[in-house]
């Protein structure tokens, strides 16, 4: 059997701080198959961006250290791989899209030059060939004839398209999109999500979509992983997780969002999750969600087991299937 496109297992990551090393990822496992979209959701500080950076070998320096686990790309171990190989992977086999295109694009070069630069670095194309491919990529993502424009001359949506062109230039098999539409207006966000779907259909790239927006997940993802305090607490098919969340945290997170499109009626208070996400370094032993969990019991002080909540759907919780009744 072929190894999965991307397999992350038991990944631990710690950062050096004034108070010594602090774990920010603990025992993270993710699998991404060709052509699928995996949504990674969680609040700020849950570790979703750190997980993405670890996958592409961009650990915060100094002090970011992978303490455990493996990251395999088509079976090839990336943990401990050389800097040159990781550079090949980034932008070559794995493309990246960030939240704020204005900070990710270089303001001093035209967008065409920046896309061409990626191609020259990774595919060794000559100046003219790279230029032509860059223009073609920009046309493909809906920014035709703007290759000579600088980032500031483009609107937010256009810049995000230019960044997608850059990420796609080398036809990666994986696209990591970290909050790709969070900074955009809703009508422009819809265009960008359509573009990502279209690109996936055309190129067959797998997408790791990091977002805090459950609506985006509902619209885009095949599978979802929910992160809390550096751990994956639930994973499963998108519809199963969104409609029948098994972990108390996922349930609470989904319940506290005002639902657009819901029928009118009297205004009611939203469900609340009391308290705050604890910062790294102050994660409780056992289940990190325990202090905020309505269903916590004494056994939650020891690390919870992964329980099956359905086919391909698991949650790390002591409550087991009985928890679904809460």
């Amino acid at each position: 059997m072929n190894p999965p496109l991307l397999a992350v297992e038991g990944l631990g990551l710690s950062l050096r701080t004034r108070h010594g090393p602090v774990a920010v990822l603990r025992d993270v496992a993710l699998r991404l198959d060709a052509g699928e979209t995996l949504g990674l959701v969680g609040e700020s500080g849950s570790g979703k961006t750190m997980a993405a950076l670890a996958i592409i070998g961009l650990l915060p320096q100094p002090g970011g250290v992978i303490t455990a686990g493996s990251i395999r790309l088509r079976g090839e171990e990336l943990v401990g791989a050389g800097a040159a190989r990781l550079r090949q992977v980034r932008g070559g086999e794995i493309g990246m899209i960030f939240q704020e295109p204005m900070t990710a694009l270089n303001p001093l070069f035209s967008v065409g030059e920046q896309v061409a630069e990626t191609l020259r670095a990774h595919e060794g194309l000559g100046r003219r060939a790279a230029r032509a491919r860059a223009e073609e990529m920009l046309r493909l993502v809906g920014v035709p004839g703007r290759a000579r424009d600088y980032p500031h001359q483009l609107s937010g949506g256009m810049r995000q398209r230019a960044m997608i062109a850059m990420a796609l230039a080398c036809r990666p098999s994986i696209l990591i999109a970290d909050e790709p539409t969070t900074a955009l207006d809703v009508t422009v966000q819809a265009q960008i999500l359509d573009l990502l779907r279209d690109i996936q259909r055309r190129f067959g790239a797998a997408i790791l979509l990091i977002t805090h927006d459950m609506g985006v997940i509902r619209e885009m993802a095949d599978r979802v992983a929910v992160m809390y305090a550096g751990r994956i607490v639930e994973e499963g098919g998108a519809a199963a997780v969104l409609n029948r969340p098994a972990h108390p945290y996922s349930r609470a997170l989904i319940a506290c969002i005002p639902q657009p499109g819901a029928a009118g009626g009297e205004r009611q208070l939203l469900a609340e999750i009391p308290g705050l996400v604890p910062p790294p370094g102050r994660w409780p032993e056992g289940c990190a969600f325990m202090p905020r969990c309505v269903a916590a019991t004494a056994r939650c002080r020891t690390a919870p087991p992964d329980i099956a909540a359905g086919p391909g759907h698991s949650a790390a919780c002591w409550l087991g299937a009985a928890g679904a009744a809460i």
Partner: protein
Amino acid sequence: MSDRPLLQVRDLKVHFPLRRPHPLAPARVVRAVNGVSFAMMPGRTFGIVGESGSGKTTTALAVMRLVAPTAGHIELDGVDLVPLSAAALRPLRRRFQMIFQDPFSSLNPRMTAGAIVREPLDLMAVGTPGERSRRIAELFAAVGLRPEQQRLFPHQFSGGQRQRIGIARAIATRPDLIVCDEPVSALDVAIRAQILNLLLRLQREYGLAYLFISHDLGVVQHMCDDIAVMYLGRIVELTDRAALFRRPLHPYTWALLSAVPGAAAARGEARVRLAGDPPSAIDPPAGCGFASRCPFAEPRCRSERPELRDVAAGHWVACHRVDRAGRGPHEATPQPAAAVPPAWSG
């Protein structure tokens, strides 16, 4: 509840002149708010929703008199605020206050939380100093902060707690109206729910009216009684929440609701997509501002600006293509006026 509006905005315009690149260049003006009128009832929440550049925040700032209106009237209980001097405005300030989007930059980092909440009481000389101290303790409890937290500085609080401080400061003078400019946009989803619930509880307790500015349709639908949709400096549709979400009439509102991720899928509708970005508010188009992106635009839409008109009781829309029977151009199946659902007509 009285029938008299608490706040009446009439034909508000806020224009910002741009610096000319050279002395002979033509004068250019950003028409951020270009003729906006609405009325707000006491104790209710009036939402303004729109995308970047629609003029919603500038409208809020103009109501607060934090930017100077170019033209128009802003009447609070019948008193026009626009011609008033800063000195004449000060005694009225206690009646309308504001909550800002960014709880990190809107609080003075050198003041303690207690001093921040106390400041408006001191400035407007509300009560005796002793009464003010009691009032601050009361306010901290009302927004869910502990009394000893009065002595802490803003950086010692989380984003959600800072927003609570901003809310305590805003309600300190017992205002009738609070302008909320994207009050939860900078917060994480779980914290958002806490702050929205706090705003709802305070409204019930104190009878506050909120002018609620947001780009998030889920939040607007959850919070607002009446909603105005803005596009390019103008209101394109204005009605109550049920009508707007059940049956948007302006093609822009229709596309906006459809663009919310997951919403179209949840309602079992096909998605609608708008091409391009909104045009610039510098030299806005002569006709309808939305014509360049509207799938139903006809030549008239590009030349003649549609006025906001009422097409049903309490439902106002600025679109040439909404017909006499009150059907939006996107409503393919003809629907006789008599068959309009009862909830929509009210």
